[in-house]
């Protein structure tokens, strides 16, 4: 799993994932999301376009990141999850928890609307 972090402007963070988000790689993502929450981000977009497999550990890492960000008054949006990830999100009803967008730009501008 490759994790790339981009900060297009202050308070906005794009986390681009590539590969498999499973029990082996999820702890790394969780740590990164918590680190981002600590530095105080308003809106984080996790780009899931290149995630070809996610399991419950991956979902747990996303939920953990979401909660950490919410505590700091931030938000976590998902962008372009693929079929396999959508199935996992739907079956766990997490599709009702995470705002899901069809592009990173859309997810980011949503953050702009919410920003004070």
């Amino acid at each position, binding site marked *: 799993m490759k994790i790339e972090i981009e900060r297009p402007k202050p308070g906005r963070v794009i986390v681009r994932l590539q590969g*498999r988000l*499973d*029990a*082996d790689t999820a702890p790394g993502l969780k740590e990164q999301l918590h680190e981002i929450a600590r530095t105080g981000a308003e809106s984080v977009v996790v780009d899931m376009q290149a995630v070809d*497999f996610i*399991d*419950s*550990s991956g*979902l*747990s890492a996303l*939920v*953990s990141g*979401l*909660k950490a960000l919410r505590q700091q008054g931030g938000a976590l949006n998902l962008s372009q999850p693929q*079929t*396999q990830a959508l*199935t*996992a999100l739907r*079956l*766990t*009803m*997490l599709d*009702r*928890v995470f705002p899901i967008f069809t592009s990173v730009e859309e997810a980011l501008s949503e953050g702009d609307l919410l920003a004070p």
Partner: protein
Amino acid sequence: MEGDLVAVFKSIKRLWHTTTEGGLAIVGRGDRPAGSVQGRKLPAAVRRALIEESPLDALKTGRGFWWVTSPSPGLLGRVQLIAWAPNDKGWGHFLQIWTDMLAFSLGEKAVADRLTEALVDAWDRLTFLYELTHIAGQVTELPDMLSSIVRLLAQVVSAEDVFLVTGDDSGWESVTASGDLLPQPAALVENIPRAGRPVGLAEIQPALAQAESPLAQVGDLLVAPLLGEGNLSGVIGLLDSRQSCFDSSDMQLLASVAEQVGALIEAVRARAARQESQRLEHELEIAAGIQASLLPVELPRIAGLELAAYLRPARRIGGDFYDVAEAKTGETMLLLVDVAGKGTPAAILTALVHAIFHGEASHSRDPADLLQVINQILQPDLEKAEAFVTAVIVRLESESIGFSYASAGHVDAAHWRNRDQRVEFLPATGLPLGIDPTCTYHSQPVALNPGDVLYLYSDGVTEAENPEGAFLGLRGLSDIINAINPAQVEEQLRIIVESLDVYRRDLPLRDDVTLLLVRALPENEVSREVIPFVIPVELTAISQLVDLVRNLGPTLPISNAEHRRQMADDFALALSEVVTNQIEHAFQGRKGQIYGRVIVEREQLVADLYDSGVPFQPSKIPQIPVDSDDPPERGYGLRLVRGLLDIFVCRRLEGERNHWHLVKKFSGVDKL
């Protein structure tokens, strides 16, 4: 203090090598003007010295060279270094600093040891010689090396002759600077104190006189032991017809020289030993080739049966062996042999068994008779070799479905009884071969029904050892067999071998591993594909299973490609959740392995997983709705498994095993 100097020199040399990939040596000491302080051209004097004293072609050709004198003198003067490197990136600057360090250390050493100039000079020159030969790694023949050492030493000391004695307990030979023969060199070696210091004539004379050595009559004698790794490899010494002509400085000089030469001889011998072991290795390779050629080129094709075999020696050549021959009445006879011991003697015995089995199988049709004959013929050889052999012979019946076997003290063969879905073990029916020439064996008939599998193997399988020191055992083998059926025989073999590797974890193979499998084909074989697997209890291993299932995607009997892919993805996710659960909950941090199989059927995907962890009852775990304002961080695995699968059960098997059964039906998609 000498140690300090050597340490400083070594660390400088190491540093130089890591920085430049070149080499470095002390060429001299004192205020002699260097031929060139810095430059790429090697001074003529050094070039000459190199050509005379060392065959280092590399040093004579165009790489970067420096001959540097330390900028400031130590107490005994300046130090001169020669250094070389594949290129020049301004390394000369470092050399200036390092030679200064050396000059300083040399001064300290001299003060402490009261070394004479001659000693330092000789030490430097020998270090030079030693370092060159050492670095080059192309030490010439030992005799040439020893002659040049005595000649070199003779130039430095004022002695009529310099001698060197080397060899071992089978004989000692001398070389002298004068070319004269040294009388009775062995007497010197046998009487030298091995403490490592040189001794004078007074100390060794009584012993030499006792040994009636003419050396007891010389004017003066100094001799030092040559030690390498604590072993005495010879002596080096000075001889003179004048009485009491050697003093303490000669003694110190000899001590230094002896240390250098001892290390040099050790290095040369180690190299010779390496070459010898390479030669042996080559011979072993040939022997291994011969042994491999004794194995059957291919296994017989028998209607209704499938056969597969595997042999992996723990060392280059092994004591395990399997074979196939035709009985008098046309049936196939199988043999699996384990000769106690490994290496060449075991290999010779396996070749002998091979010859007897092939010679006798065609006269016999009963496994017990055949064992008896082999036992009688082998008896004298086994007695001489103080070895014994275990063997199992199986005759596959051509008419009815079944076999009969006889086992000479061999580890229990295993029989998978498909109808009962369990493993039965087939014990030995007599003593190992070579124990008792009059031993009688008996043959046991066994039915082989459709789906049944016979596993012949050597004890390298059941005695596979994990890092905790536990054997796989018959129990562990049962676990594997239980999980891999009803896969095809080649697949079963692959997973058994893989399971042994997983079980041993990082431990090397200690015993030969041999397997010979016979499977009676079931009638409905074509309608499904069985893929057995084994993984270690590690989260990192789960991705292998995900790959395995996803790779099945394109082969699923579903018409739409996208649906095939989704079906495989869903099943891979469910399987990985179950395995994650096994690893995190059933094993609770313990090591181990998980065996299982994935089955592709016409209407569904099935997986069975087996582990030896604590019991788990998924039905007892309640499913709480997810609160979208405060979603739980964990507990999504079971939710996924329930959502993805049509059937998911975990049952407890006897022997504290868990069996997980997963089914996903091809519903809502167009089947092929």
